[in-house]
């Protein structure tokens, strides 16, 4: 199976403006745009041929000595019709395929980006909810741009040009009328664009202001109810909506004019063309080509006139897709920005195979400096972790306990320094302050610890040792109990015990724990720590615990006190 993430698109410039960013994302999938342009052209040619066929049928029936064979006209017409709509469907499908390809690549990149950024950096940037929103909704907001706007932009140039060419060939005066009706299509596009954007923005602003007022009153419902002002406020909400309506309508009356002008041009142009052709056929005009005009030419041009303006209208409709996509691109581009681009890591990490007595992990002169912050979080830090150590990382909040733990885990490459990682420290168990329980059964949550199948008996033993025996009332279905998201009846302490069991099953001897008890009350904390340290002793585990809890400090023979780095007192 191909790995789109690894070998796909060349990485676009992430700090680019949203417009170029959108274009950069479509570049690897350009062939779909070629297909949509080709289908547009085919559909337009079929339309022109169909108009010619119809005009010829009418002309022939009225004037030719040998009238055309009508069933033949019907069949030929149906074939052209089929071609036209098949080509149009193909054009739309090509647009959707393009959108699909771009979105797919984008989502692949987003997923990969998360893995590379790691939990430590991610925590500072976004929440799971916001990220999922980006992944699902923001990416979907791009659909309209690729599926509708881009094909419509092609059609707005290709179709009128093809029709104009056909009209010029037949009667340049009629073609001139059409051309004048859309003085310059780019000018039209600008008008439409400005109009659409203006309407879009204004309406959005008004709607936001109104929604803000509404939400504010809902938030203060308690106060309003206690003040017995519900009815008065309801009247205010309604009155406010009407006030906004009057304001909005004032802008809309002007804003709609621009599109009305376009409509006017297209309607009048069709009318003008019809009247010109009529007068020319009648013989009232004999200037230029008007003298030679036939019913065939007249009808042909008349049938094409609406088709000439159709792409313009569709383009105008798709314009708001562009506005939505630009907004989405603005929020997506930074989410994809490479973490290494902003903070170059000059750190050296090496894995040593060394003998048993070597430290598991050795940090030398490590510095971590988050971009955009004045002082580094960690500075000149040296640390050696021996196998079997119980080390507490202590210090006030903001002193970099969690950052140091993330460096130990390899989630965060330090800005500077040297890390020696023993081969035995390549794998480790991790326990957070809020153990994440994955959606699914308890068994699935435990199986996560190891790639090989874990037998039920081993799981039961691990749970027992972690202090959550399988016959606990919270686990009615034993290993098949559904846990996850809302924890389904497991308390915070029990969730931590599931995490401990998971860590046990992993078989890793280095355990990294980030504030493992901060979400627990005192009694639960003591009980969990009893379990933890008993296990550590019997199994010879190495514990590194970041915590500000005294209960943990008491139990750890080794401690590393971290102090916030200030410019005046560099950390020693």
């Amino acid at each position, binding site marked *: 199976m191909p790995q789109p993430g690894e070998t796909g698109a060349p990485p676009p410039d992430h700090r680019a403006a949203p417009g170029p960013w959108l274009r950069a994302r479509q570049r690897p999938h350009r062939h779909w745009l070629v297909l949509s342009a080709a289908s547009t052209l085919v559909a337009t040619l079929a339309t022109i041929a169909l108009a010619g066929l*119809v005009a010829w*049928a*009418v002309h022939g029936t*009225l*004037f030719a000595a040998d009238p055309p064979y009508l*069933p033949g*006209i019907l069949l030929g017409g149906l074939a052209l019709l089929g071609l036209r*709509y098949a080509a149009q469907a193909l054009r739309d499908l090509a647009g*959707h395929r393009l959108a699909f390809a771009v*979105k*797919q690549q984008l*989502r692949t990149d987003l997923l990969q980006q998360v*893995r590379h950024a790691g939990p430590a950096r991610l925590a500072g940037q976004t929440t799971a909810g916001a990220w*999922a929103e980006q*992944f699902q909704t923001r990416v979907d907001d791009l659909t309209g741009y690729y599926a509708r706007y881009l094909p419509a932009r092609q059609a707005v140039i290709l179709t009128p040009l093809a029709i104009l060419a056909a009209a010029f060939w037949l009667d340049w005066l009629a073609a001139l009328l059409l051309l004048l009706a859309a003085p310059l299509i780019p000018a039209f596009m600008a008008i439409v664009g400005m109009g659409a954007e203006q309407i879009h923005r204004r309406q959005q602003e008004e709607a936001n202001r109104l*929604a803000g007022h*509404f939400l504010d009153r*809902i*938030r*203060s*419902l*308690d*106060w*309003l*109810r*206690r*003040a017995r*002002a*519900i009815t*008065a406020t309801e009247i205010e*909400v*309604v009155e406010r*909506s*009407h006030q906004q*309506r009057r304001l*909005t*309508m004032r802008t*809309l009356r002007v804003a709609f004019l621009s599109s*009305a002008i376009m*409509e*006017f041009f297209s*309607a*009048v142009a*069709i*009318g003008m063309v019809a009247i010109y*052709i*009529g*007068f020319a*056929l*009648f013989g009232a005009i004999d200037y230029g080509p008007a003298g030679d005009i036939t019913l065939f030419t007249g*009808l042909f041009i*008349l049938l094409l006139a*609406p088709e000439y303006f159709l792409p313009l209208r569709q383009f105008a409709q798709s314009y708001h897709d562009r506005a939505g996509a630009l907004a989405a691109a603005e929020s997506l581009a930074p989410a994809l920005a490479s973490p290494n681009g902003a903070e170059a890591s000059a750190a050296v990490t090496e894995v040593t195979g060394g003998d048993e007595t070597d430290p598991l992990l050795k940090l030398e002169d490590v510095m971590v400096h988050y971009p955009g912050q004045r002082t580094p979080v960690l500075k000149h830090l040296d640390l050696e972790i021996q196998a079997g150590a119980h080390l507490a990382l202590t210090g006030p909040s903001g002193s970099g306990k969690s950052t140091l733990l993330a460096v130990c*885990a390899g989630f965060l490459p330090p800005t500077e320094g040297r890390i020696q990682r023993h081969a035995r420290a390549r*794998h480790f*168990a991790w326990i957070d302050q809020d153990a*994440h329980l994955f959606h699914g059964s308890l068994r699935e949550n435990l199986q*996560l610890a*190891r790639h090989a199948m874990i037998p039920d008996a081993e799981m039961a033993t691990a749970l027992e040792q972690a202090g959550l025996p399988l016959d606990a009332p919270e686990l009615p279905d034993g290993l098949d109990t559904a846990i996850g998201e809302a924890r389904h009846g497991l308390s915070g302490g029990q969730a931590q015990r599931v995490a401990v069991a*998971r860590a046990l099953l992993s078989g890793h001897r280095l355990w990294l724990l980030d504030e493992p008890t901060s979400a627990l009350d005192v009694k639960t904390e003591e009980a969990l720590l009893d379990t933890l340290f008993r296990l550590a002793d019997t199994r010879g585990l190495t514990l590194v615990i970041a915590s500000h809890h005294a209960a943990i400090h008491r139990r750890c023979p080794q401690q590393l006190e971290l102090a916030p780095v200030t410019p005046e007192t560099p950390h020693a």
Partner: protein
Amino acid sequence: MRDETRANLAFLHRVFRRRRVWYWGAWGLLALTWIAGIALLALSGWFITATALAGAGLLATLDLYVPSGGIRTAAISRTLARYFERLVSHEAVLRSLADLRGHSFRGLAALPMARVRAYRSGDLQTRLTSDIDTLDGMPLRVVGPMVAAAISLVVTLVIAIWLAPWPAAAVLAVSGLATLAVSALLALAGQRRSHALVQARARERIGLFDYIGGLAELLAYDRARGHEASLRRENATYARQQRAQEAFGVGSEQAVQAVVGASALLMLVLALGWYRDGTLSAPVAVLLPLMTLGLGEVLGSLPGAWWRAGESLKAAGRVQHLEAAGQAPAGAARPAPADHAPVLQAHGLTIGFHRERPLLGPLDLAPARGRPLVISGTSGRGKSTLLDTLAGELPPLTGRIALGGDDLDRISADTRYRHLSYLPQGLQLPDTSLRDILEPRHTHLSDAALWEALEQVDLADAVRGTEEGLDYRIGEAGSYLSGGQRRRLALAAILLQDRPVVLLDEPFAGLDPRTLERVLSRIGPWLNQRQCLLVTHAPESLPRDWPRLDLGRPAPS
């Protein structure tokens, strides 16, 4: 399911009926736009053919100016109708939006407190707003096109019957019905798929939450790549389904256009046949197929209309659900207690959130009118929960609270607050002017009374310092005021409410001793006329002669 759809439709009908004149106007204008478009095309065809015949000497006389005037009229009225259609439809929608906001505000206000708080968290608020916005699709994008399409179709049918033999009308009728049926069927099939899509999306969201939330564990146990790959695979499947759905939509649109085009061709061939028979004149023979072609714009809007109907109905279901939930408890309301100054009493009261773990109690409370009862205790003891319960905003676990002899939980919220003022711990003031905070019911209190109340809580000087005075806006969540100013402003409003029972939670938080003394001396007389319970963490700063109730330390858990 069907009942639900009917109920949702009835709800939509109720909401939009109020503005029916506007909607009918918009639909009429839409029909006019389309009919003018059809007329433009059909008349032009007629005109060209007639002039060609006249030019060739096959038609004796031809008035050039009436038909060309007709073409110009059609062209101009199409533009005007389109312009006004957009204006009128926006006007209608914005009016309905105002109605709906009023509706849903009333619905929310009638909900029990706990439910409103649930709405407050999460994205339900935003969903409510977007649901309201989705609703207006019903009259404008669903019903409107259908009504206008029906009108346009009838007009063309009448013309066809008048001008040509019956098969012409039959072709039009069949093409109209065929598009309606095709688009309805396609939309129905599409909606079934969209249900599966919504579920797939929810599943994907769970996977994403696990990926982000459990990233550390996944990385530690070397599962991140695997999880990423499975998310990518699932997303690919989901996206393929989504693409099939979109292809379906694309296909149905083009299919409808093709049906219209085929009907126009058929009409052309029929009309030319009739011309050869001598049944029709040549100009009419050209007019008929062009008129049919003009229906393309009309019928092309139907697939989208069906498509949107589903979304609007779903949104209607959610909004209506909210409204229905709000109306239920209103029926249980009792009339006001007869007593003019009813007294609040509690017997055997235990409070808390879980029956197994009561925070406090049992407790008997019957504070006397006159001096405030000062309630204190360490934090986490349940002081604020006690006031919430006494105000009737949280049901007691056991025991009985009575207001003027009636059970508190049987008195409607509005009646309860006729007799009871409550300043809670979490205060959320609306973003409005000081005047509207002090006098939210617009009861025509004089400015002097408002200033007097501000004076009593020692805020008058600060307000005089602003340019706007009483019209000063306090900002979102009162952010232009300090925390202490907000509480004092709320206290001033409570003074003006002038109710016999007053519950105050930390009313003087953040006041320096001298200001506190000033405020106490000013509102003392007012407090002495009513039954007051006051919660504070600093009882020593209050007058020594006020009775005390110390709740002590938290119960061991």
